[in-house]
C-alpha cells in the first residue's frame, strides 16, 4: 500500500496556527505512507495537478488530503484522484482547518492535533475499499402535493416542460388560500382573477392528472422511483357524471353545514361546490351535515341530479401512482382564534380573523362583498385590526413573525375605506414589516391616503359593551393605555404549519422544525431541496410566505425537477450497507431498525436465511451496522474496521 499525504496551508488559514511542514514530516514516518508534502492551496488547479502528478510519479494508491472540512472539498478531491486513475473512495480528508487551525491559537497543540487527525485519516484510508456506483433508470413523472398557488405553479412549469404531473389536493378544489383572498397587495388586483386562469390551466392541462379531495396515503421508494398510494376520499358524487350544474346545492335542505371554503363566515349546504370558480367544478357531500347520512332519509340531491351522479354508498378509494420526484407544496394553516382568550377567543361574533374578513370583502363571498358585522349584519363604521394575533408570541409557542400580515392588514384597511367611505380603520401594530418591492409605500398609502390610524402597541383585551367591542391596547409612542369602541375587530391570526404537516413529513422522510415547517437542505444555497433526494419544497410549507415568494419557489422546485429529469439514469451512492452472507445469521435485527425499509429477508440457494439490502433504497445511515451483532452487515466506507482503525490511531496505550 502506498499512501500519499498532502497537507494544505490554505494560505495562512491553516499554516498560521499549524506547523504544516512538521505534520508532513510526521506523516512520512507512518508505515504505509510513501509520500507526504505540504502545499499552499491544495484545492487550486495547480494543487490538484500536484496530487495527480504525485500519484503517477510515486505510484500512490491511496490519498490523504489534510485541509478544510470534507463537507467543503471532499468531492473536489475525489474527482481529482479519479482523474488520476484511482477509485474515488481511496481518498480521505483530515479536517485541520475548521476543526483545528481555526479554533485554537496554540501552534504546538494544534500541530499535535493535526498529526493525530492525519494519522486517523491514514489509518482509515488503508482500510478503504474501491466502491462503484450502480446506475438506475429514472421514472420521469412528478408528484406535486398541494394545489395552492405554489403547487399549481410547480405543476404547470413541470407540465409545460413536458413532464407528466400528478397533482394531489386535499380539499375539493385547487386554489388554496389565494383563491379565498379578495385582492392582493400591493397592487390591489383581484386575487381570483389572476389565479383563475392558472386553475383552469391546471384543470385542463393534458400532462396534469389532478386528484382533488385526495390525500397521500403512503410513499415508498427513492429518488427516481417512488410508489405513491393516494386516497381518493369519498365525495358521494360520481365526478365522472357530475356536470357542476349546482342544482343539488340549490335544493339541498341541510342549510347549516360548515363552510370550509369561507372559514365558517356563513353556513353552506351539505352538498356543495365550494365556490363558483372551483376547479374541478364538482359537487361533494359533507356527511357530517347531510340528512341522508344523519337520519337515513332525504335523498333530495339524488332525486334532483340530472345525471344521476349521487352515490351515497361511495367509499374511499386507494390508487397507486409511480413517480420519480416529489414537490411538496402543502401550504400553511392559521392559528385557532380560540387560544387567544384575552381577545375572547371565538366568544364574540364581531371579533373575526383576517381570512374571514377577506371573505366578507370578497364579491363572491357569502355577503357578496358587503362588509357586515356577523352579529347583527349591520355595516361597521369603526374597524380595528390587530396585528400579531398570536405571532411573535413566545408564550403560545409562536415566536416567529408570520411575515405577510402587516401587508394584508394595510390592504384590508384600504379596501375597507373603499367599501365604506365613512368608516375609520385602526391598526394596532408592533413593527411594520414591509420589505418587498412597493410594500412599504403601500403601508404608507394606507395611512396617508386612506387615513388608517396606526397605533404602535399590542392589544391587551377585547370585550363587548353594549353593541360595541371595546379594544383596549397601548399606544407606546404616547406612553398610554388606549381604548377604541369598535364595531368590528379583525385579528391577524398567526400563520402556523398546515394541519398534519408532521405526519406528512414522516411519510416523506423529510425534516421539520419545532413548529412543523419543513426544513430545506441549506437555508441559503439549497432553499427548495430537502435532505431526502428527489423531494423538493415549494411555498409556505417551508415557512410563512407571500404570493410572489410562493410562486417563485414553485417555479424553482419545478426547475430542480426538470434538471434532475434531464438525465435518463441516476447513479446510486455506493456508500451503502452490504451484507456478508457468510457471516449473516439471519436474525434480521437490521430489518427491524432500518429507517428506510431497505432491508429484506432473503433465502440463499443453500436454504440459509439472510438479510438483503435493496441498494437503491438504502440511504447509508449505518443504523443496521450498529445493530448487527455479528458484524455481517457493513456500511461501506464507514465499516467497523474503518472506524476502529481511526479509534486505534488515536487510542494507543
Amino acid at each position: 500500500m502506498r499512501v500519499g499525504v498532502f497537507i494544505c496551508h490554505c494560505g495562512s488559514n491553516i499554516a498560521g496556527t499549524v506547523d504544516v511542514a512538521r505534520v508532513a514530516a510526521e506523516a512520512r514516518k507512518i508505515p504505509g505512507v510513501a509520500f507526504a508534502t505540504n502545499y499552499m492551496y491544495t484545492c487550486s488547479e495547480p494543487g490538484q495537478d500536484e496530487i495527480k502528478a504525485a500519484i503517477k510519479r510515486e505510484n500512490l494508491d491511496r490519498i490523504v488530503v489534510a485541509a478544510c472540512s470534507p463537507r467543503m472539498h471532499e468531492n473536489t478531491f475525489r474527482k481529482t484522484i479519479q482523474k488520476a486513475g484511482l477509485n474515488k473512495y481511496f481518498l480521505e480528508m483530515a479536517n485541520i482547518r475548521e476543526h483545528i487551525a481555526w479554533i485554537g491559537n496554540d501552534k504546538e497543540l494544534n500541530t499535535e492535533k493535526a498529526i493525530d487527525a492525519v494519522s486517523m485519516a491514514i489509518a482509515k484510508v488503508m482500510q478503504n475499499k474501491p466502491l462503484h456506483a450502480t446506475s438506475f433508470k429514472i421514472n420521469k413523472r412528478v408528484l406535486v402535493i398541494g394545489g395552492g398557488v405554489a403547487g399549481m405553479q410547480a405543476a404547470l412549469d413541470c407540465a409545460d416542460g413536458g413532464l407528466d404531473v400528478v397533482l394531489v389536493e386535499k380539499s375539493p378544489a385547487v386554489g388554496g388560500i389565494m383563491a379565498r383572498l379578495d385582492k392582493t397587495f400591493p397592487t390591489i388586483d383581484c386575487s381570483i382573477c389572476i389565479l383563475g386562469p392558472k386553475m383552469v390551466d391546471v384543470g385542463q392541462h393534458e400532462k396534469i392528472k389532478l386528484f382533488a379531495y385526495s390525500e397521500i396515503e403512503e410513499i415508498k421508494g427513492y429518488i427516481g422511483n417512488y410508489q405513491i398510494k393516494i386516497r381518493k376520499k369519498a365525495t358521494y358524487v360520481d365526478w365522472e357524471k357530475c356536470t357542476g350544474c349546482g342544482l343539488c346545492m340549490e335544493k339541498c335542505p341541510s342549510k347549516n353545514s360548515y363552510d370550509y371554503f369561507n372559514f365558517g363566515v356563513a353556513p353552506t349546504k351539505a352538498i356543495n361546490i365550494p365556490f363558483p370558480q372551483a376547479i374541478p367544478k364538482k359537487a361533494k357531500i359533507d356527511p357530517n351535515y347531510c340528512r341522508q347520512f344523519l337520519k337515513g332519509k332525504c335523498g333530495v340531491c339524488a332525486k334532483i341530479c340530472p345525471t344521476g351522479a349521487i352515490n351515497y354508498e361511495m367509499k374511499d378509494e386507494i390508487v397507486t401512482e409511480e413517480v420519480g420526484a416529489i414537490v411538496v407544496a402543502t401550504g400553511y394553516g392559521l392559528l385557532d382564534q380560540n387560544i387567544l382568550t384575552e381577545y375572547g377567543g371565538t366568544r364574540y361574533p364581531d371579533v373575526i380573523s383576517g381570512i374571514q374578513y377577506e371573505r366578507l370583502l370578497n364579491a363572491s363571498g357569502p355577503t357578496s362583498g358587503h362588509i357586515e358585522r356577523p352579529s347583527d349584519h349591520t355595516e361597521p363604521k369603526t374597524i380595528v385590526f390587530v396585528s400579531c394575533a398570536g405571532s411573535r408570541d413566545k408564550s403560545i409557542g409562536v415566536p416567529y413573525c408570520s411575515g405577510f400580515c402587516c401587508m394584508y392588514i394595510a390592504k384590508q384597511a384600504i379596501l375597507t375605506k373603499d367599501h365604506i367611505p365613512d368608516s375609520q380603520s385602526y391598526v394596532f401594530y408592533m413593527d411594520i414589516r414591509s420589505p418587498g418591492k412597493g410594500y412599504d409605500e403601500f403601508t404608507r398609502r394606507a395611512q396617508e391616503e386612506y387615513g388608517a390610524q396606526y397605533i404602535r402597541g399590542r392589544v391587551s383585551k377585547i370585550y363587548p359593551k353594549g353593541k360595541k367591542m371595546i379594544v383596549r391596547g397601548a399606544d407606546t409612542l404616547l406612553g398610554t393605555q388606549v381604548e377604541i369602541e369598535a364595531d368590528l375587530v379583525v385579528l391577524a391570526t398567526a400563520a402556523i404549519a398546515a394541519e398534519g404537516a408532521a405526519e406528512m413529513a414522516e411519510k416523506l422522510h423529510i425534516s421539520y422544525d419545532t413548529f412543523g415547517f419543513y426544513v430545506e437542505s441549506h437555508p441559503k444555497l439549497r432553499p427548495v431541496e430537502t435532505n431526502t433526494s428527489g423531494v423538493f419544497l415549494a411555498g409556505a410549507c417551508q415557512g410563512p410566505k407571500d404570493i410572489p415568494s410562493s410562486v417563485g419557489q414553485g417555479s424553482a422546485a419545478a426547475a430542480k425537477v426538470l434538471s434532475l429529469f434531464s438525465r435518463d439514469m441516476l447513479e446510486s451512492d455506493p456508500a451503502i450497507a452490504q451484507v456478508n452472507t457468510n457471516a449473516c445469521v439471519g436474525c434480521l435485527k437490521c430489518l427491524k431498525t432500518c429507517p428506510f425499509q431497505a432491508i429484506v429477508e432473503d433465502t440463499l440457494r443453500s436454504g440459509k436465511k439472510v438479510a438483503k439490502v435493496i441498494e437503491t433504497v438504502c440511504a447509508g445511515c449505518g443504523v443496521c451496522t450498529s445493530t448487527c451483532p455479528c458484524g455481517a452487515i457493513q456500511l461501506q466506507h464507514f465499516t467497523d474496521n474503518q472506524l476502529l482503525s481511526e479509534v486505534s490511531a488515536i487510542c494507543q496505550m
Partner: protein
Amino acid sequence: MAEKKYAYYSGCSQETSSKEYDISLRAVMKALDVELVEPEGWSCCGSTPAHTVNHVLAAALAARNLALVEKMNMPVLTTPCPSCLTAFKEANHRMENDSFKKDVNSLLDNPYNGTVDAKSSLQIIYEDIGLETIASKVKYVFTELKVAPYYGCIMNRPPALAKFDDPENPIAMDKILSALGLNVCDFAFKTECCGAGYGYTKKDMMKELTYKVLDMARDAGANCIAVACPVCQMNLDLNQKEINKDRGSDFNMPVIYFTQLMGLAFGCSPKELAIKKLIVNPDKLLKNRMLKSETDKGQDKEKLKASA
C-alpha cells in the same frame, strides 16, 4: 367519616371582615361531606405586603403554614382566599430552588420540605367534588338571580403558577353556578382587577376600578355578583353607596360569595350562611325560590309542549 379530607386555611380576612366566606364554605363542605382540618396555630400568609418587601420573608411566612400541614401528613392545603393561595403557590414555586429553600428554612423553626400542594377551595369544589355531585345536592333554584361570576385578578394568575382554569376566561365558577340552576351572565370582566389592594391608601384609584367592574356586570345583565375572593367582595360590596354618591349612579347590586349561593341552593338557611353580613341586601332577589324537582317538572312539561 367524611369522604374527602383537606387541610384548610381560612386566612385572616375570614376571621373578621369576611367571616361569611368561611362560614358558608364550611357549611357547603359539610353538605358535600368534605372534612376540613385547620392546622393548629396558623399564621398570616404574608399576602401582598410581604412580597413587596422581600421574597424570602414572604415565602417564610407562607411556608410556616405549609410546614404545619406537612406535619399533619396532608398532601393538599385548600384556602378560599386567592391572595393566600398565591402566597402559598409562590412559596412552593420559589422553594424549588435549593438555595432559596435553604434561606427560607433558616428563618423557620420547623423546616418546610415542599410537599404540600395548595389549591383554591374553588378548584377543590370544581375538580374533586365535581359538577354532578353539586347538581345532585341542589334543593332550591333561585329564579330571580342573574349572576355575574367574578373571579378577581389573581385566582387564576399567573397561569404558570395557578395551573387551573383559563387565566382570561375562567369557567369553573360559571359551571358551578350553572349546576345550581342559576342564570349565569356572560361577563367580560371576570378577572379584571377591582382595585381592592388600595382600599386604604388610594381610594380614588380603587373606586374607579370598582365602578368599572360593577358597570360591566350591570351591562352584562346581572343583578348580583358572585365572588370567590374576600377582598374583592368587601370592595365591591362596601363601596357601592359611595360610588353612587360620586358618580350619581344607582348601584344596589348584592355581592354574594359563590359558597353562599351553593349553600342556599343546597337548602342551608340564610343564617347558616351568614347572609346577613352582606352589606348590599340580597333578600329581595332571594325571595323567589323553587324546589328543584318542580323546575325539572316544569322543564319536562315544556319539552312535552314543544314536542306536541
